[in-house]
């Protein structure tokens, strides 16, 4: 019995689902951010898994894109955390449901 490509995809799917559940169902804003990171990781894993099913040069592309996605995630986390600090300073709450200033 060998490692199958589909196993990797199933793993990615499971982690993505957990990340989505964390991002949407938890109210603490840190958990929301962590859920998003988790989901991003799962997508990266899926990229790499699919890249390994391609021949030769094409597979390189699938390993480059996660690099970029990691870099963008770094930028996102950076700005996101700064916003959390800013909001926390004004509202003194980490409950994402209280951030409803934009409601029409």
């Amino acid at each position: 019995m060998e490692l199958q490509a589909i196993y990797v995809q199933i793993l990615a799917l499971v982690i993505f689902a957990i990340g989505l559940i964390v991002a949407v169902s938890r109210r603490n804003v840190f958990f929301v951010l962590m859920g998003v990171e988790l989901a991003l990781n799962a997508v990266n894993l899926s990229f790499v898994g699919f890249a390994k099913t391609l021949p030769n040069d094409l597979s390189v592309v699938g390993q480059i894109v996660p690099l970029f996605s990691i870099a963008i995630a770094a930028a996102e986390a950076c700005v996101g955390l700064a916003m959390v600090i800013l909001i926390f300073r004004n509202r003194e709450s980490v409950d994402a449901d209280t951030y409803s200033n934009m409601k029409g």
Partner: protein
Amino acid sequence: MISLWLIPLFPLLGCILLGAIAVISSGSRKGPAEGFVGALAVLFPALSFLSVALLALDMPEAGIRETLCNWIDIPMFRVEFGFLFDGLSRIMLLFVTGIGTLITLYSTGYMHGDRGFARYFAYINLFLFSMIVLVLSDNLLLTFLGWEGVGLCSYLLIGFWNKDLKNCQAANKAFIVNRVGDIGFILGMLCLVTIGGSAILNYDALMNFIQMIINGNHLDLVVPFLSVAGILFFIGCTGKSAQIPLLTWLPDAMAGPTPVSALIHAATMVTSGVYLLARLASMFAILPVVLNIILIIGMLTAFWAAVAGLFQNDIKKVLAYSTISQLGYMFMASGVCAFDASIFHVFTHAFFKAALFLGAGAVIHALAGEQDMRKMGGLLKKTPVTSCVMIFAFLAIVGFPGFAGFWSKDLILERIYTNCTMALPAFTFFGAEVPSIQLNSIIYMVGLATAVITAVYMGRLIILTFFGSYRGSKESEEHIHEAPASMLIPMVILAFGAVFAGYFWADSIGIKFFADTLAPVVGSAQAYNASAVTIHVNPMVFAAFGTLAALGGMFIAYKIYANARIPAAKGSSAPEGRKATWTFLFDSIHKYVGIIPVNVLAWICDVVVDKILAAAQWTIGAIATILGDGAASFQVRKVRVQVALSIVGLIALVAIVLLTGGTL
């Protein structure tokens, strides 16, 4: 060699400079120095006149053509910014810039002490610029630019004293009535473009096109279309030149300062309609129907306005109606294809009418704003120079032998008699056969009668103003004074013009300078219709009749008004009773034909259409509100719920893709 674009450039510069001065000085209490502004204001028209004169002296026979730049260049439509200086525009430019300069000089005296001194001269310069563009352009579209420009300046200057609501209403009236005519002009241009493309808007191209049609015998094909275009252009001309039916604005336009009335509403702007007819002479020459319409309209206008002139008490209103009447003469001449005669009358009329208006301005100036003739009288001794100028101009307008009007008006009457080929077709009247009637003698008689009436009302004006005894109040009599030199000099120069301008084309004594210079422009057009002339009468007979009419009219005026007791002036100088009915005939026609239907339409729009629109609007609004409220109920406070809902949507999408196998 002077470039053509210099001519309009000078007044434009003047306008910009004076406008800047007016804007800058609007905040200060005292206003700009009048001497400086006046000098600037006269300088630029004078420079323009100088360049025109220099150009006119050595103009080649075919004229000068100059293309400045490309104006409009889009697919299917190409117009150049070009100027054309030929016999016709030379004459027009000479008197537009010349008389314009004189009247600007006169205005420096007349407008002395007015708060809007610089503004006034900025408008005058803008007007001269527009008029020069109108006359000098080599295509219809550029002419239209000037055409609109003079309309705008007319509006600005009529409403110059805009503190008074009546002046503003008069300005609005002039502007709106002119718009009606301008629509005719635009549609006429569109007609031409439809026939021959945008190139045909150029006057030379149009002339060649007409010549090609005549040579190729294709008249039947294009004459119906061209007739429509011709009628539309003629509507444009009736607006600008105050002919029936668009003439009601000109008497009201007397609300502006008197020099404006002299410059715009007597000498230059109102003649642009006649100019356009002459410019398009080659086109009108092949359209007998349009020519007949022009002739009839001109005749009716001349006669009606002359009679209306009899009833006026306001000195400027008399002159206004006389202007309309004289313009009627010019249109009559155009209607019998005698375009050179009509331009000649424009030329002489510019001199004596400007002199009359400036004289009237001097009289009003002397009487401190009084315009009612019933309160004047006996001014001959108090203001001798003004009186002499007015009397010379009067002799010119009635056609006294030797004066300018004699040559031009008699020429028109002669051409009407000889050239007119209009005839009533034979018809059956109560069983009796009525043969076809040649109308030329009838129209000639109407023209002659109009000349008599002209002499009567002008004689009335002169007698009421300058002879008899003063009828105003005692204290105002002591303040009567002669106008300053800056006003007298232009008047005297114009009076000389009124006396001698006619000798440019004194047919009876063999001088034909004027006809020769216009021949390259309108000669071919007139030659096309000249073949119809069959009657040959000694021109001396017409001269005799004209003289008789002038003398007869003056005699009647003397008999009626010299010793008549003038009714005491009431509050208003407007005519009353039956006289008012005649004077305001076309105002009431406009009211019933134009204003009331439009008002009814507006009422219908207001009451019916507006309600329907409001209902439709309300329905759409209600639907949007219901939809919006429904959608808003899904919108909840929590972002997480929204994300959760979108996950459900995603599930639905994935399910659809899976169920359909991705082939949807």
